[in-house]
């Protein structure tokens, strides 16, 4: 691709480019020269590349249109990232830019056939109608449709799809959205009155539309004052929406979540396109876009231009482009003679520009880019008269259908809108408290008036926050008066109705993003989608990357014409975020994955622990050999880190009563220094958690919970404590107390060597809780046995946990001690038929049917949670039962396999299953109907359709008489 320096204009004082510094990048593999300060779009246009993208549905060529990031026409892929707007993305040396949505190339796209031959077959909603039969082919259709739809392709590999966006929370007194003169004036005024202000602007520098025009200098000096005033400027930054007071602003690699007390929308206005045949051809540009290209980047938008306008805007563009060296072939002004600003008109005449009043553009011709325009005179009804059509050769059609206020953020914030006949636009009305509008969005288009309106909004916001003084109040009054006398309303305009799209020459696009033609809109109305909201959903008009900026008003006008309804009654579609296009990854933000780790996590790593998620903890699944770890517990000793258990201190004179009311068994009669198992249930008697409780003294209980249930149990306890108002204090010490289970026949020997405590069976009996120092570390020791061997659960302060772990490991090494992980623990506990709440129980399980009837003390005097329900369960009798089983064939059925009857109907569920290396057979737990819950009963288990025989086993598989545990 050549560097077409011929399309560069002579330097002008407003241009952003540095002609002394050349930058090279590639587009579709070809080298492009640009100047520092260029955007990809300006550089490509200067190099002669007019087609930048292909359209969404018909794959039509598209080129620069607005040059302000407002339309869908210039989306390209940059360094593998799709969906980048070429007209706002600055060039960087070496960047790789490519087209999107065209195969095999941008110049020759086979899918263009849809435009040429397939239009008839692809009306709105065609995919609901066409691809439904035969149904079995849907997966194929889906694949084809998915391949054809969408804009751009994400990088294939996950690691290339990831990038990082910071979330930054920013509180402010005042947030100003929009960095044009109104926004700058608002920010400056509020800051001068003492407010903490954030100003957001989507351009690379403050100044808005003034930057490309004669107001550039004064906008520049206002910007300097803003920067000097301490206002935090986020630029270029896109305000994405308004979410209950939070405005997310995407700015580079950061998503700022801005929470401000007051908001000022100075979002400006949006120039509207005209709808005519071929209005999407490269070379059809908005007037402001053509001016920006010429003024900011010194790039000639075209050599010979036709201007079509409904306001003075087009006349000004004609003069600006002519001054820049573009030949103006004609200016078609849809207004009647005498409606243009006389001074502007006079300047136009002086410049010898041919002004055609009551004339509009009805077509653009050219195959891949504009070669000419067709103009026609308007009749008394404002419709083009076909008899007056005439063609004019040109390579640029600059259009301006007037401007509409950019109200989306205001509407999202709760403002209402109303149709303003004089401005020909929906304008904001009655903004909610704390939300202000300034500048063009509030109807103040003239720069001087816009600045005054900004100052008023800034002062009002600051005063509402009780900032400023009497002088500020009088200044505000003066500003308000000046504003009232200013020119508020835009010049009169006459917007021709969108072309009906008869297809004489080409398609008329109401929506460029989604390739919705005026014909499509008419079609949708004929099909019954005759409200703008319904039509939007059916045709997807306004749902593309421009978010309605270019297409909302044209589609509303079309709906009004086709349904013969006033525009004011057609109404406006709901404003929804995001207002600007944003990658999903930006919204996701930096990934936070909170994980708890034990105080000896470092040791587990050193010992080769395979760390996995267990609830919100990271803990070792095993240390490389789960079988050997299991056998070590049976043959010598094992040490497992159970610090993940929930741990609560329950203290106070009413602690016993409190626990009596929460648990179905008794705790007020538990002696200090003793431990009891507890199953926690809800009001319906269903099991929610379990754990052991140790009474430390008369008023204090140490309660353990399951690892994943700790937070829920703490909340449950707190909730009931608030309700019962007992003299009890709760403290959650789960994360501070480390706990290790030392288990196995050698456990006593190991422990005895590290403590002065009498560890004999008499001195430290089963279910005793003792406090003593172990290897110098203060511990609470519970003699319990979840894994079925003689065992001690040692609880100690986290900061000393590593000392204790190391001492135990050292003392145990000669006795065969080895660390064991979660997996061996699961096998060991299964051998004892000890349940895991949440795995062996579900939201329906009660203690009776979970084979723990002994834990329910219905003879307790006090009421307890779930008592009524459990009495009913007892009266009704068990319907199912949690039982153990062994497999006949030695296979290990998956957890979640079903117990089936003779007809293969599921009648039960396997909750746990493992191969026990000690017992050398497969064991498990399952819920079965009560009539099968007999020792030795044969049951059938179906694992993904594979039917296997098993036998019910009610007693623990290992040490059923608890001799090892108690010995």
């Amino acid at each position, binding site marked *: 691709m050549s560097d077409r320096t011929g399309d560069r204009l002579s330097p002008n004082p407003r241009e952003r480019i540095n002609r002394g510094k050349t930058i090279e990048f590639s587009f579709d593999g070809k080298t492009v020269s640009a100047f520092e300060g260029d955007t990809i779009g300006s550089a490509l246009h200067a190099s002669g590349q007019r087609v930048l993208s292909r359209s969404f549905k018909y794959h039509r060529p598209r080129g620069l249109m607005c040059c302000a990031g407002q339309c869908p026409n210039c989306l390209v892929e940059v360094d593998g990232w799709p969906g980048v707007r070429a007209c706002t993305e600055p060039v960087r040396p070496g960047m790789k830019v490519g087209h999107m949505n065209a195969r095999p190339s941008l110049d020759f796209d086979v899918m263009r056939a849809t435009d040429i031959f397939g239009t008839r077959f692809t009306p709105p909603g065609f995919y609901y109608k066409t691809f439904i039969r035969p149904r079995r082919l849907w997966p194929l259709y889906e694949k084809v449709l998915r391949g054809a739809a969408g804009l751009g392709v994400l990088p294939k590999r996950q690691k290339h799809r990831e990038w990082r966006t*910071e*979330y*930054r*929370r*920013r*509180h402010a007194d005042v947030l100003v959205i929009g960095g044009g003169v109104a926004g700058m004036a608002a920010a400056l005024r509020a800051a001068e009155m003492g407010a*903490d202000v954030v100003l957001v602007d989507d351009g690379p520098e403050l100044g808005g539309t003034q930057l490309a025009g004669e107001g550039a200098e004064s906008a520049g000096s206002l910007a300097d004052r803003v920067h000097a005033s301490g206002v935090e400027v986020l630029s270029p930054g896109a305000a994405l929406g308004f979410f209950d007071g939070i405005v997310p602003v995407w700015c580079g690699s950061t998503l700022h*979540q801005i*929470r401000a007390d007051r908001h000022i929308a100075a979002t400006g206005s949006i120039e509207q396109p005209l709808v005519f045949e071929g209005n999407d051809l490269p070379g059809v540009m908005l007037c402001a876009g053509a001016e920006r290209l010429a003024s900011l980047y010194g790039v000639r938008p075209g050599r010979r231009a036709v201007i079509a306008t409904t306001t003075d805007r087009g006349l000004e563009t004609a003069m600006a482009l002519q001054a820049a060296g573009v030949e103006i072939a004609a200016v078609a002004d849809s207004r009647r003679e005498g409606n243009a600003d006389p001074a502007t008109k006079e300047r136009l005449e002086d410049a010898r520009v041919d002004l055609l009043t009551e004339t509009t553009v009805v077509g653009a011709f050219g195959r891949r880019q504009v070669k000419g325009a067709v103009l026609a005179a308007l009749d008394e009804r404002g419709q083009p008269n076909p008899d007056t059509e005439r063609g004019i050769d040109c390579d640029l059609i600059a259009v301006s259908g007037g401007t509409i206020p950019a109200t989306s953020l205001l509407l999202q914030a709760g403002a209402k809108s109303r149709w303003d006949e004089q401005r020909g636009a929906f304008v904001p009305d009655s903004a909610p408290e704390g939300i202000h509008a300034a500048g063009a969005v509030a109807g103040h288009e003239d720069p001087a008036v816009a600045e005054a309106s900004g100052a008023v909004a800034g002062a009002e916001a600051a005063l509402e926050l009780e900032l400023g003084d009497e002088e500020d109040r009088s200044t505000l009054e003066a500003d308000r008066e000046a504003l009232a006398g200013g020119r508020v309303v835009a010049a009169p305009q006459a917007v021709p109705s969108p072309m009906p799209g008869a297809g004489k020459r080409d398609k008329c696009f109401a929506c460029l993003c989604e390739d919705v033609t005026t014909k499509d809109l008419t079609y949708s109305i004929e099909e019954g989608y005759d409200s703008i909201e319904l039509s939007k959903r059916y045709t997807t008009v306004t749902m593309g990357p421009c978010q309605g900026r270019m297409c909302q008003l044209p589609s509303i006008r079309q709906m009004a014409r086709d349904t013969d309804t006033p525009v004011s009654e057609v109404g406006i579609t709901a404003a929804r975020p995001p207002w600007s296009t944003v990658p999903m990854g930006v919204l996701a933000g*930096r990934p*936070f*994955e*909170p*994980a*708890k*780790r*034990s*105080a000896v*996590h*470092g*040791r587990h*790593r050193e010992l080769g622990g395979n760390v996995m998620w267990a609830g919100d*903890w990271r803990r070792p699944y095993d240390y490389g050999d789960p079988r050997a770890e299991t056998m070590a517990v049976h043959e010598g000793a094992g040490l497992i880190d159970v610090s993940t258990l929930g741990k609560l*201190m329950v*203290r*106070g*004179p009413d602690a016993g009563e409190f626990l009596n009311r929460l648990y179905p068994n008794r705790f007020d009669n538990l002696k200090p220094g003793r431990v009891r198992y507890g199953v926690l249930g809800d009001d319906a008697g269903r099991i929610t958690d379990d754990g052991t409780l140790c009474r*430390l003294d008369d008023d*204090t209980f140490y309660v353990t919970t399951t690892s994943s249930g700790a937070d829920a149990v703490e909340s449950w306890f707190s909730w009931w404590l608030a309700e019962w108002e007992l*003299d009890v*204090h709760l*403290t*959650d*010490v*789960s*994360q*501070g*107390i480390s706990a290790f289970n030392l288990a196995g026949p050698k456990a006593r020997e190991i422990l005895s060597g*590290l403590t002065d405590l009498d560890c004999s069976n008499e001195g430290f009996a089963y279910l005793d809780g003792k*406090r003593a*120092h172990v*290897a*110098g*570390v*203060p*511990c*609470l020791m519970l003699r319990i046995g979840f894994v079925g061997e003689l065992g001690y659960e040692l*609880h*100690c*302060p*986290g*900061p*000393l*946990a*590593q*000392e*204790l772990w190391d*001492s135990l490991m050292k003392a145990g090494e000669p006795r065969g001690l080895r660390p064991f992980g979660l997996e061996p623990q699961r096998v060991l506990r299964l051998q004892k038929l000890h349940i895991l709440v949440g795995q062996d129980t579900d939201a329906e399980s009660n203690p009776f049917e979970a084979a723990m009837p002994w834990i329910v003390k219905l003879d307790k005097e006090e009421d307890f949670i779930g008592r009524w329900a459990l009495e009913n369960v007892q009266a009704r009798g068990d319907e199912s039962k949690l039982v153990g089983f062994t497999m006949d064939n030695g296979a290990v059925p998956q957890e979640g396999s079903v117990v089936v009857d003779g007809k293969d109907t599921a009648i039960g569920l396997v909750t746990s299953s493992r191969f026990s290396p000690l017992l050398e057979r497969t064991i498990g737990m399952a819920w079965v109907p009560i009539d099968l819950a007999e020792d030795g009963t044969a049951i059938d288990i179906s694992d993904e359709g594979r039917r296997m025989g098993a036998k019910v086993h009610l007693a623990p598989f290992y040490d059923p008489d608890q001799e090892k545990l108690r010995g």
Partner: protein
Amino acid sequence: MSFEFLAPDDVKAWDGASPMQRSPIEWAHLDAGAKIGERAGWRVVSDYGAPDREQAACRTTVGIADLSCLGKFELQADQATVASIVSALAGDATPGLGMAVGHESVWWCPVTAERVLAITAPERTKEIRTALEEQASQAGFASVTEVTSALGSNSVIGPMAREAFARATALDMRPASFPERGFAPVSVARTPGMVLREEGDRFLHLFGSGYAQYNWTVFVDAAQRLGGRAVGLDALRAAVTEGAPAGA
């Protein structure tokens, strides 16, 4: 009374030495090149091998220091009892919700009207424990639970400290909304936590100690992106105003 298995300083000599207390993430500090020193029975990070740069971070950007060694106690009682116990130990001052009281290197932080968190330099942990228990035993119904190990704590210090927090929490930390001594239970990096503004741009972040490594990673990473870094206690000490309350 408190219980010795909750008190990490209640150690006994064993095998010729007394067990040392350590941060739950000492291993991560060692991985990062930490030099370990000793402070009131704790193994603490003196520096990460770049003391000058660590001090500079505290002065010019942001430094994160592990202060797991601070003593912490939870006092629970009815509102009047809490106020009177705190007042007795904090020079007649009582904390109002949202504002902590700093007195002689102890922070009294109101979690609720009936629950106060006392945070002390490790050198004074025993003394504060004894004083609190004495006061509580004289009250009708008050309990003191040691939570030194249950709560991890990091100091976040420097002109960019607020920016580091802004990456992880929605708390409004502007001086007007969160002045010196401001204290707030708040979610930080999606975990429950508490934040205390000790002075100027020095903040104490408290969290469940199970989240110590997670929070450390989150904050060091945020600090590094802001030009800051992990700092040892030497750098922290140098940056703290002399006579300021609490840990450093």
